[in-house]
C-alpha cells in the first residue's frame, strides 16, 4: 500500500498558483479522452472539432462569448457569496427572477430612451435577484435555516412560477401557442456588438461587472468586510464589523449578479422570456466560480473556457457523432481536477517509507 500524508506548504509560490489551473485542465482533458474513447472515436480529432467549434471562426467565437455572458454573471454571483461563506446555490432562481423583472417592466410598461432603458432593465433585474435572497438571509440569521436548502428550493419555486406565468397570464398571444413572454420593446433590447452574430452588449456588461466586483472585493471596505465575515464571523463581529448588514450586502450583490444574467438572456440573446431561457446557467456559475478559485477576474477566463466547452461540444457531437453530454462530463472532470490542484497548492504530499 502506498502510504502518504498531507502537510501544509509554508511557501505558496505565485508561479505554482498560475500554472496549476492549466495543468489541471490538461489532466482533465486526458481523463475526458477516456470517455471519448468509450464513445468509439479519436479523442484528438474530437478535441480538434471541439476547439474549432468554439474558437475556429468569427461566428464560433461570438457564440462562445455570448454563451459565456450569463455564465460570467452567475459565476460572479457564486464567487461573492462563497467568499462570505454564504452558500447561495440559488443563482438559477435569481436568474429567472431577473428575467421576470425584465418581462414585467421591459415589454411596454415602462418606455424610456435606450440609453436609460437598458441600465434600468439591468437595475430591476438585479434588484429582483437580490431581493429574492433577502428573506432567506433572515431565515438563516434568526432561525438558523441552512441557506443551501432554502436557496436550492427557491429555484424550483421560481421556475414553476415562470412556467405558470408563461402558460397563463403572461403568455404572448402572438407566440403561436408556445409558452413564451411578450417581446422586450426595441429600446430595451441589448444591441449587437459584432455584426451578423448573436454577440450582444451584455458581454461588455458582464466584463464590466467582473472588474467592478474585483475592485469592491480587493480595494473597498465592503469587500474587506465580506472577507472578514467569511473567514471568521465571530472575530469580525467582535471588531465591530456589522455581520448581518454585510451578509445582506452579499445577498444583494450575489443575487443581483445572477438576476442580471436573466437580463442578458431575456433582453439580449432571445428578446423574450421562455421556459428554457437557462440550461442551468445558475448551477454552471458554481463551477465557473470554483474554477476561478473565487477570483472575480478569473471568473471571466473560466466563464469563457466553460462556455467554449459547451459550444464546442455541440460542434463536436455533430461532426464526430458523439453525445453532447460529453460536455457535461468534461466540465465536471475539469472542476474536480481544479479542486484537487487547489489542495495540492495548499498541501504537499509526503510519502512514507513502508512499515515492515
Amino acid at each position: 500500500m502506498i502510504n502518504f500524508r498531507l502537510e501544509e506548504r509554508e511557501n505558496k509560490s505565485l508561479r505554482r498558483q498560475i500554472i496549476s489551473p492549466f495543468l489541471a485542465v490538461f489532466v482533465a482533458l486526458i481523463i475526458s479522452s477516456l470517455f471519448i474513447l468509450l464513445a468509439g472515436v479519436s479523442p484528438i480529432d474530437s478535441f480538434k472539432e471541439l476547439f474549432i467549434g468554439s474558437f475556429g471562426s468569427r461566428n464560433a467565437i461570438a457564440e462562445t462569448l455570448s454563451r459565456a455572458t450569463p455564465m460570467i454573471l452567475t459565476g460572479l454571483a457564486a464567487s461573492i457569496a462563497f467568499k462570505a461563506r454564504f452558500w447561495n446555490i440559488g443563482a438559477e432562481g435569481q436568474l429567472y427572477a431577473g428575467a421576470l423583472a425584465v418581462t414585467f417592466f421591459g415589454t411596454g410598461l415602462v418606455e424610456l430612451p435606450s440609453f436609460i432603458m437598458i441600465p434600468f432593465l439591468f437595475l430591476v433585474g438585479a434588484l429582483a435577484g437580490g431581493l429574492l435572497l433577502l428573506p432567506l438571509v433572515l431565515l438563516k440569521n434568526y432561525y438558523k435555516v441552512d441557506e443551501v436548502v432554502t436557496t436550492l428550493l427557491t429555484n424550483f419555486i421560481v421556475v414553476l412560477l415562470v412556467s405558470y406565468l408563461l402558460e397563463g397570464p403572461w403568455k404572448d398571444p402572438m407566440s403561436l401557442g408556445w409558452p413564451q413572454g411578450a417581446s422586450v420593446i426595441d429600446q430595451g433590447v441589448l444591441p449587437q456588438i459584432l455584426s451578423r452574430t448573436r454577440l450582444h452588449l451584455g458581454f461588455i456588461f458582464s466584463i464590466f461587472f467582473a472588474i467592478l466586483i474585483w475592485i469592491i472585493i480587493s480595494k473597498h471596505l465592503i469587500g474587506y468586510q465580506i472577507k472578514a465575515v467569511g473567514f471568521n464571523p465571530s472575530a469580525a463581529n467582535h471588531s465591530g464589523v456589522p455581520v448581518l448588514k454585510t451578509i445582506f450586502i452579499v445577498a444583494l450583490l450575489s443575487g443581483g449578479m445572477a438576476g442580471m444574467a436573466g437580463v442578458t438572456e431575456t433582453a439580449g440573446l432571445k428578446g423574450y422570456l421562455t421556459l428554457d431561457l437557462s440550461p442551468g446557467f445558475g448551477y454552471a456559475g458554481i463551477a465557473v466560480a470554483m474554477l476561478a478559485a473565487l477570483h472575480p477576474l478569473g471568473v471571466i477566463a473560466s466563464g469563457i473556457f466553460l462556455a467554449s466547452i459547451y459550444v464546442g461540444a455541440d460542434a463536436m457531437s455533430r461532426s464526430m457523432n458523439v453525445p453532447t453530454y460529453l460536455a457535461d462530463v468534461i466540465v465536471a472532470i475539469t472542476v474536480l481536477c481544479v479542486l484537487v490542484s487547489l489542495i495540492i497548492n495548499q498541501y504537499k504530499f509526503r510519502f512514507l517509507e513502508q512499515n515492515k
Partner: protein
Amino acid sequence: MNPLLKVQSISKSFGDLAANSEISFEVNKGEVLAILGENGAGKTTLMNILFGHYMPDNGQIYFKNNPIKFGNTRHTISLGVGMVHQHFTLADNLSVLENIIIGQKSLFSFSLSKKTALDKLNSLIEKFSLPIDPDAMVSDLSVSQKQRLEILKTLYKDCELLILDEPTAALTPQETEGLFKTIKNMVNQGLSVILISHKLNEVLSVSDRIIVLRNGKKVGEKKTANADYKSIASMIVGKEISYPKKIKSKPNREVLRLEMVSYKSDHDLDVKINNLNLKLYGGEIIGIAGVAGNGQQSLAKLLTGHLKPTEGKIFINQNEVIDSSPKNFMNQKVAYIPEDRNKDGLVGDMSIWENIIMTETDSIKIFNQLGFINSKNSHDQALSICKTNDVRLQKIDQPARLLSGGNVQKLLIGKWLYRKPQIIIACQPTRGLDEGAIAAVHRMILDARKDGNGVIIIGEDLDELLSLSDKICVMYNGHLSKPLDTLKTDKLTIGMLMSGKGF
C-alpha cells in the same frame, strides 16, 4: 537501569523553520518529566512526532528499547504511550464506559463485552483512586471529570508513559491539586509522566526533572530540586524577564456603572445574571474571579454590547447606554479583549495589517470617503502598532494565523489601545501565554491603567488577579460579590467566595 523512553537527536523542519533540532532526552520509570518552553519552542511538534502525527527528518525514539515507528499512532499507543490532549477527544453522547471501550474493538465484532471492560475500569478507578461513575453521560461531566476520564482511557490501554498537554489550563486551584495527587499516585505505582505546561509554579511543585526548549533546541535540563522560578523563567525566554511593577494610581472619575443589571435567556450558552451592581473608575483595575461558567462570559458580553440586559441600566461616563450593540460600545471607547483570541479576536486567514485595521472602519485615514482602503496608511499604521507593542512578525502581509499566541495577544491589545479607550474589558488575557508574553501583556494593562483607563479583568488565575487588580469581585452562579480591596484580602477568602460561601 535502562530508561523507559529514549529520544535521540530528533530534528524536524518546516521549510526554513527548524521546529526541532537535535533534541535528545530520556524519561525513567516512575518519574515526572516537565517540558517547558514558550509557544513555538517546539514542544507540540516534539509530542506530535512521538505520537505519530508528524515524521521527523532525523533521529530515533526508543520506548522500552523498541524503536518507535514514526507516523503510526496506533503503534505508539500499543507500545504503552498515552496522551491526554489539551482539547478532549470524548464522545459527548456516550457514557463513560462506552467512551473507554470505543475504538478498542473491531467494528465487525458483535458483542461489546461490557462486563469485562467494566471490571477492568473499576479496578483502575480503585488502583489510581480516580472516582468516576461508569454509567454517567460524558455531556454531564465537569471539565476535571472529563480529564479524569481521558486519563482512565489511556490507563485502560495499559499505558506506561502518560503525556499531559497543558492539563491544568481549565481547572480550578482545587481541581489542580487533585490532579497533582493523581499524578503522584500514578508515579508511585511505577508509571511515568511527561507534563507539558506553561505554569512554572505548578511544574516546580509536581515534577522531578525539567527540560527547557527554546527555538526548537533543548537549552537546559535540571532536577526540580535544584531549580528555582527565576532561573527557569529566564532559561525559557533566553534572557532576564523584567516583570512590570504596579505603581500607585489614583482612581479619578467613574467611567462605568452597572445598576441592577440582569440577564435571562433561554439560550443555554449564556448563563443568567442577577442584579449586578458595579462601579469602575478610571485608573483602576477590577478583577472578576470565579470558577468558569458562573456568568463571567455573559457579564463580558453585557459590558461590550454583545448581549442586551433584560433588566437594569448600564452607564458609561454617567450616560445611560440605550443602544446595546458592539459598535456603539466601541464608539463609547470600550475595548474588548475576548477570552478565545483565535476564535473571537483574530481573522487568521487575513493578513496582519488587515486584522489591525478591522476596528478602524470609521477612520478617514484608513478608508477614504468613498470607502476605499488606503493601503499605504493601513500598512504604516499596522507596522507602527506592531512596533510599539513588540509584535514579532516576518512580514506585515503574512496571514495572521502564523503568529504565536503571545504575539496575537499583543497585536489584539495593541490595536484596541491604539483607539485610546477609556474602559478595557479583558477576559483571561494571559491564558496559554508564556512567561515573556505574560509580562508584556501585564505591562500593557498596567500602562493603560496608568493612562487613566478603567480596566476589568475577568480571569481564573488568582495569582494574576491579585497582582494586577486594585479590587476583586467574585462571580458565583450569576451573582457578583462586593468588591474586596486586593491589599486586604487573600486567596483563602476569595476561594471561599468562589465556592459559593458568603453569597
